[in-house]
């Protein structure tokens, strides 16, 4: 049984998802990527569902506020109100306010800005009191009313002669509920027959009665007349809350009281003849239900199909369960390697063969399990969209955002940990990078600044780029500032790239320079640390006056890597295979004097002696090997003793005592049971290159 707290958590998650949808849609409209008509249904549904569910939990402030938002959206949907730029902007503010209210449900410490809420409600109110002459509610249009049933009866000619009296039915309806609107229409032919009925009745009925009850009022004229009964939109809500059972669309609608069994029967009969039409289409065609209701039912049906785990459906799984599964698979991989080693020692070919197919399966299971954790980065990008919009507005800058590769996948936990650093870099670019409009014009740049977010896969890594066409980084000013802060000495020789990297030093940014927007207590040093925690790397390119580009390279996944095992003395080291370029025998002869670089087919290759770096006591082996590794555009050689071959390494966090050790990013248990240290290749390359250039 689900307890209330769990249900609330689900509501909060659902509401956050819906708010996300709402935001994306509104931003699309604001950016001109979509018309209000494209998205109004989705936006409305988001608000509507949040209101409905919040009501279930008694979150009355959410219900109250969202109700006003929904009412305005409803007017837009009914074409009674135009969604102009002002309204989109107001709705975005409302969306943000709703997000605050939802967030405050889980963290009561987060105060909701009540004044802001009142202000927004006032603003919404002006739209709700729009002049009546804008568009008089057309009685004839059989649209579903928010909370009233629409009844439309085209009486047949014989109704009076059959002894039927429409006024009695009308009178009877008043016993079921309140008649909101009654309109009697008639058109008399030239050969008017007083005993024939030419009446057409349309009305709106507010009632708690179901459709069957309403239809029954007309049961005796059903054969002679045409009766259409459309449920109110609140039935849509009901559809969303009916208990889960595998049901057909038609039955779903009947259960919600939107359609009567008779109508369904008729339509099913009709469907036999028009096999290409769906039940939903036919019901709409027959005027039994408005499209919105069928859509809601179809959505609901789709939701249920998720539960049947069909191909392209989405299934929500608790991250905890997934992590547990991946941990088990990791252990299976390790156990597998141990077995593989033992089996290879038996010289039993049949056993080896049989086991190799298991190994193959384990690899597939591993890849499959890891891909479960993969999500598209687009979600984090759309969050950045909002920041770009809000920040550029506040700063009075005009910025266009380009997003490329939103479909690129990476590990879910990385996406979460990335959102802060990305946000910070983007804020920085808007704050310090892109110039105000007048300066841009003065410099002969287009008035509108451009910010480009892109993501792509490259050599076993995911790369995320944030590129702006702003002022770029000023190396001399950065240097001056770093000297002033005492981060470097004035004599220190630094490459341009090194100077750029100073902005990642703790204590580089100062409050004076940080505006109220980017200064949220997070400096660029935290950005770098966050990315390094993800075993990633951040690189800066910049051209003064033209712009800057931040590139974040991240491993595809955090849990398991294809590794290559080497040893130095009796220490086992593991390198990620995808970073290895080649392995060579270490020829002392090719050494350039005493320097730590060698000539690799004409290229200069800096190298690191791991024995020295890690201060391993054993003397060098008589034969050493060099592993050439590459990361991004740099490469280096690592000098080791023996090359042991490939393995799958399940990454385990490093014990605290090793955390300060440079060049090691994690550990793993080898098949033999020994501990292997996973090398941090980017750091090692950086180390090799900088020590060599420092000379």
């Amino acid at each position, binding site marked *: 049984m689900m307890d209330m707290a769990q249900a609330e958590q689900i509501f909060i998650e659902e509401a956050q998802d819906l708010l996300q949808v709402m935001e994306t849609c509104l931003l699309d409209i604001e950016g001109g990527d979509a018309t209000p008509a494209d998205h109004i249904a989705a936006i409305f549904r988001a608000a509507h569902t949040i209101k409905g569910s919040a009501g279930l939990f008694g979150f009355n402030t959410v219900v109250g506020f969202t109700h006003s938002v929904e009412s305005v959206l409803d007017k837009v949907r009914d074409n009674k109100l135009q969604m102009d730029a002002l309204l989109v902007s107001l709705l975005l503010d409302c969306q943000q306010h709703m997000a605050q209210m939802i967030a405050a449900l889980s963290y009561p410490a987060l105060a909701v800005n009540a004044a802001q809420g009142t202000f927004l409600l006032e603003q919404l109110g002006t739209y709700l009191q729009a002049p009546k002459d804008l568009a008089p509610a057309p009685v004839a249009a059989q649209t579903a009313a928010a909370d009233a049933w629409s009844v439309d009866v085209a009486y047949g000619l014989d109704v009076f*002669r059959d*002894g*039927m009296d429409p006024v009695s039915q009308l*009178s*009877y309806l008043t016993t079921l509920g309140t008649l909101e609107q009654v309109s009697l229409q008639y058109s008399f032919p030239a050969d008017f027959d007083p*005993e024939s009925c030419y009446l057409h009745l349309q009305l709106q009925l507010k009632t708690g009665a179901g459709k069957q009850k309403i239809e029954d009022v007309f049961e005796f004229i059903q054969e002679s007349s045409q009766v259409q009964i459309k449920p109110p939109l609140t039935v849509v809500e009901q559809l969303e809350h009916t208990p889960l059972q595998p049901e057909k669309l038609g039955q779903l609608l009947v259960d919600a009281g939107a359609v009567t069994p008779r109508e369904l029967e008729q339509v099913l009969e009709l469907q036999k003849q028009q096999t290409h039409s769906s039940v939903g289409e036919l019901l709409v065609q027959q005027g039994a239900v408005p499209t919105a209701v069928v859509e809601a039912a179809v959505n609901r049906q789709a939701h249920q199909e998720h539960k049947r785990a069909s191909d392209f459906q989405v299934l929500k799984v608790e991250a905890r369960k997934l992590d547990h599964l991946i941990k088990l698979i990791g252990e299976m991989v390790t156990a597998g390697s141990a077995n593989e080693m033992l089996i290879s020692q038996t010289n039993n070919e049949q056993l080896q063969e049989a086991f190799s197919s298991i190994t193959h399966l384990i690899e597939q299971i591993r890849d499959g399990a890891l891909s479960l954790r993969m999500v598209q980065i687009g979600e984090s990008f759309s969050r950045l969209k909002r920041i770009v919009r809000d920040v550029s507005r506040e700063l009075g800058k005009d910025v266009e955002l380009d997003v490329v590769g939103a479909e690129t996948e990476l590990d879910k936990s990385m996406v979460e940990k990335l959102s802060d650093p990305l946000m910070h870099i983007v804020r920085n670019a808007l704050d310090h990078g892109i110039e105000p409009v007048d300066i841009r014009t003065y410099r002969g740049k287009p008035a509108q600044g451009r910010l480009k977010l892109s993501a792509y896969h490259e050599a076993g890594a995911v790369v995320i780029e944030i590129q702006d066409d702003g002022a770029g980084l000023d190396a001399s000013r950065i240097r001056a500032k770093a000297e002033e802060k005492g981060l470097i000495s004035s004599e220190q020789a630094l490459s341009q790239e090194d100077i750029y990297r100073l902005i990642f030093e703790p204590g580089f940014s100062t409050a004076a320079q940080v505006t109220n927007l980017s200064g949220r207590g997070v400096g660029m040093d935290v950005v770098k640390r966050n990315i390094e925690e993800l075993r990633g790397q951040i690189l800066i390119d910049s051209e003064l006056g033209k712009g800057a580009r931040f590139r974040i390279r991240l491993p595809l996944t955090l849990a398991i890597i294809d590794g290559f095992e080497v040893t130095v003395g009796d220490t086992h080291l593991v390198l990620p295979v995808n970073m290895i370029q080649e392995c060579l025998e270490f020829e002392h002869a090719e050494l350039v004097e005493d320097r730590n670089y060698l000539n690799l087919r004409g290229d200069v290759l800096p190298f690191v002696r791991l024995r020295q770096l890690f201060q391993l006591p054993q003397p060098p082996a008589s034969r050493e090997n060099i592993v050439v590794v590459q990361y991004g555009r740099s490469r280096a050689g690592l000098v080791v003793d023996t090359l042991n071959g490939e393995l799958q390494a399940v990454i385990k966090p490093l014990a605290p005592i090793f955390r300060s050790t440079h060049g090691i990013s994690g550990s793993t248990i080898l098949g033999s049971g020994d501990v292997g240290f996973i090398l941090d290749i980017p750091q090692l390359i950086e180390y090799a290159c900088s020590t060599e250039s420092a000379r």
Partner: protein
Amino acid sequence: MSKTILIVDDSISIRQVVGMALRGAGFEVIEGVDGKDALTKCDGRKIHLVISDVNMPNMDGITFVTELKKLAAYRFTPVIMLTTEGSDDKKAAGKAAGAKAWVVKPFKAEQMLDAVNKLILP
């Protein structure tokens, strides 16, 4: 002025229960014990609604409705047929004769009142 309803059924208990319910709702009720008896009550007086059983001695309901509809004063008078579950052929015959409304037996008094109220104003 209250409206008049004619109830035709050979079962005394049905006539009593329906009669009580209808009188309680403000209608004037006259009774017929079978089709033949009922026709004698249709002497030109104003009758707003007829409720008739199908299976009755002397004259069954279908014949009664057919005869009733031949009389000018009752040609448009609404008729409720009391049918039983599954007697669709009887229902169809009743409709053909001019009884366009029906209530399925067994029914509760409220169901009968509902049907009446869908046909005539109280």
